[in-house]
Every structure is written in structure tokens, then in C-alpha cells.
């Protein structure tokens, strides 16, 4: 499987944010998007996810499901966490499991997801009581529930302490090891395996 972007030109309002960008991400690989604020990392991620239509250019997932768009085979974790405060931690996870992936049994997968991010003892608490870091971890746990081949992450380590960041890195590594792909926008270093960097300011890909 390969994520291929060709000659992407993306406008936001009257500003041309991305002008003729091409890159590819192979299965088992993570691509880090770096660059100063405002250079277009979030815009590129949202375009890959399908929210924004590029002015020109193509995005496709070779080897993926031909019936689905790229966005439908991806899972995005952006700046917000998509957590409902009135529900408990477990209920939040269960809802996403049921919504995103019908037909699979809920409990084992959501438990495993919560456990990976250290939230299993909090599962009955209302999500409103969680700290900012814990909410971020719950938002990231959704990645393990969604089970999509392409992960699109926007500043995933924000609000995370060192231990939690390590859990995230472990999750991404496991994901790429089993053949998944990831595109991660960050301006902090992430110790990932099998990683390449794309600096959007210079629009060059470094191995």
C-alpha cells in the first residue's frame, strides 16, 4: 500500500498554501511534516483527510480499498479530541468503536485501546473529570479503535508528558510495523522507527 500525492496545489482563501507538492508514503512508514507555523501542515493533513479539495493534483492510496476515498481509509486526530464530557471514558470509546467499525465486538478492542494509553482504571469516570493530557490520550486512543490503515496526526504530542508521548510513539511504531502508514505534523522531534521527514517550508523530503 502506498499513499501518493501528485502535484498538489492547495489554496486557502486567496492564499496559495501548497504549490506543486508531490510525495509518497509507503506501507510501514511514517512521514513527519515539519515547518514553521502557518506553512501549511494542518492544511495538508486536512486535504489528505478529504475535508479540503485541492485546487489541482491527486491523492490516492494505492493498494487500498478502491471503493473508499482516501479520507475514509484514514483516521485523523487533530487539535481537538472529539470527547463528549457527559459520557464516561469507556462510553466515549465504545461509541467510536460502534460508529467507526460496525460489526466488531466492542469490549476487547476498546479495552486494549484504553490500556495502551494507561486509561483503563479511568474507564467509568465521566470524561469531564479528565485532565488535558488524559483527554489527549483518550483522543489518541481512538486511533486504536478506528483501525484505519492511514493515520493522520496533527501535533499529537501537545498536552502530553514524556511517558504519554512514549506510549504514542509505541502505538505509531506498532502501527507501521504491521503495515500501516502515518503522516504526522509536528514541530517537536519524535523518536519513531522507519520515519522520513518532509519539511514543508523547503518542500524537500529528507530520508
Amino acid at each position, binding site marked *: 500500500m502506498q499513499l501518493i500525492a501528485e502535484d498538489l496545489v492547495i489554496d486557502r*482563501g*486567496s*492564499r496559495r498554501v501548497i504549490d506543486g507538492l508531490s510525495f509518497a508514503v509507503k506501507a510501514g512508514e511514517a512521514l513527519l511534516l515539519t515547518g514553521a507555523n502557518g506553512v501549511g501542515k494542518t492544511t495538508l493533513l486536512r486535504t489528505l483527510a478529504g475535508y479540503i479539495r485541492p485546487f489541482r493534483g491527486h491523492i490516492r492510496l494505492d493498494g487500498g480499498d478502491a471503493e473508499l476515498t482516501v479520507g475514509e481509509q484514514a483516521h485523523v486526530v487533530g487539535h481537538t479530541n472529539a470527547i463528549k464530557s457527559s459520557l464516561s471514558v469507556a462510553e466515549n470509546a465504545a461509541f467510536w468503536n460502534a460508529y467507526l467499525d460496525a460489526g466488531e465486538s466492542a469490549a476487547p478492542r476498546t479495552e486494549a485501546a484504553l490500556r495502551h494509553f494507561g486509561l483503563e482504571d479511568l474507564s467509568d469516570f465521566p470524561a469531564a473529570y479528565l485532565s488535558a493530557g488524559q483527554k489527549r490520550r483518550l483522543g489518541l486512543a481512538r486511533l486504536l479503535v478506528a483501525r484505519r490503515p492511514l493515520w493522520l496526526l496533527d501535533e499529537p504530542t501537545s498536552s502530553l508528558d514524556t511517558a504519554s508521548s512514549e506510549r504514542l510513539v509505541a502505538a505509531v511504531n506498532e502501527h507501521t510495523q504491521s503495515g500501516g502508514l502515518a503522516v504526522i505534523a509536528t514541530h517537536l522531534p519524535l523518536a519513531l522507527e522507519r520515519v522520513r521527514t518532509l519539511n514543508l517550508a523547503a518542500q524537500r523530503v529528507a530520508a
Partner: protein
Amino acid sequence: MQTLTQRLANPTRFMELSARLLPWISAASAILLAYGLYLAFIDSPADYQQGETVRIMYIHVPCAWLSMMVYGVIAVSSFGLLVFRHPLADVSAKAAAPLGAAFTFLALLTGSLWGKPMWGTYWVWDARLTSVLILFFLYLGLIALRSALEDEGAAAKLTAILALVGVTILPIIKFSVDWWNTLHQPSTDFTSTVDPSMRLPLLVMAAAFTLLFFAMHLKAMRNEILRRRVKALRTQAVAGRDRLAAHATTQGAAE
């Protein structure tokens, strides 16, 4: 062979073309307006029922027609934006909305002034006036929505969606208002049948107003294009002057 809309799609070409057309349209509209007013106020007979006040009809009816036509223009422009992504479609819709609202308001105002001598009150809830009033609200909604949204690209598309929703519901609204009217009062026909001698001034005034709208619409579109150009230039200038901007700008900011 490009179609007319395709050739006009380029804003620069549009500016050139409209610059050449505008004086002619304005002149034609002025002439027709003068002729129409002459016919309306001097040459045509007074109505045997209503006397001199019928002359307000020569302004009221064309305004009402125009208020509907302009909404049609907005609807077509909105369709052009959403389906064909025509670059000038949004400029057209944005320019037309205030004009349409103005014509609608004029229609209401003249209708009210016309009504006073006829029915004794400044307002009556008959089918046509009520429909025009609701049309006025639809225009207000379009203008309000666009001005509330800061992101111009999103504002363009959202306003277009609202315009298309409005144009779809408009016939239903008209139908429901007519229904409501027949329920609540016996039909007092607002316009008596129009005498042939009155048709000519009416048509002339209608044509005059239509040309007037086109002239104003073109002018407003030109203004809007210019405004957007200024805005784009300023945005670029802001990006170019940022001393902390890390990227090497290929556009070559003047340092």
C-alpha cells in the same frame, strides 16, 4: 470555441468588457427611464377608478418584477458557483443581493404609497405584497449571512447554498401565501386589468429598470473585483514583510 461565460470567466477580460459596455448600458437605461417616466406621468391616461395615483403602478410593478428577477440572477449565480465553480459567480451574487433588496424595498414602499389612496391604509396583507415582504426577508437573510462570515470563500459557498434553498422554497411560499389569502379575505384584486394604453409605459419602465439593474450590477461587480485585488495584494504584502517567516519565498519579497 469558448462559450460566452467561459470567455467572461477571466476577471481581467470581464473588467475590459464591462468597462466598454457600461457607458452604453447606462446611457440606454437613462434614456429609457426618461422616456418611461414621460409616458407614465405625462402621456398616459389616468385610471378611471383610481385617478392619478395609478401612476405609482408604473414604478411599483417594475420594481416587483425586478425583485424577483434579481433573485433569479442570484440563484443562477449560486448554481454557477457550486456546480461549475465559475470564478465570477460569487462576485455576481454578492453584488446583486443589495440591489435586489433595494428593489424589493422600493416595491414595498411604492406598493404601500399606492395602497393608501386605494384602501385607506398604508399596508394591507394581500397575497402579492405579503409575498414581496417575505422575499425581502430572504434577501436580508442572504446579506446578513454573508456579512456575518469572515472567511470569504466559505461565505461565498454558504450564501450560495442559502440562495438555492430560498429559490426552491419560494414557489411553495408563494403558493402558501396565495392559499392563506383566499382563506382570509375574498380576493380583492390588487391590479385591475391593465388597459392597453397603460401597457406601453409599463413595459418601457420595466425595460428601463432592468437596464438600470444591469448597469448597477456591472458596476458593483467591477468594484468587488477591484476590492478583492486590493485585499490579495495586502495579504501578500503582510506575508512578505514577516521577518520571522522561515521559508525562502520564491515570489521574491522586496527586502
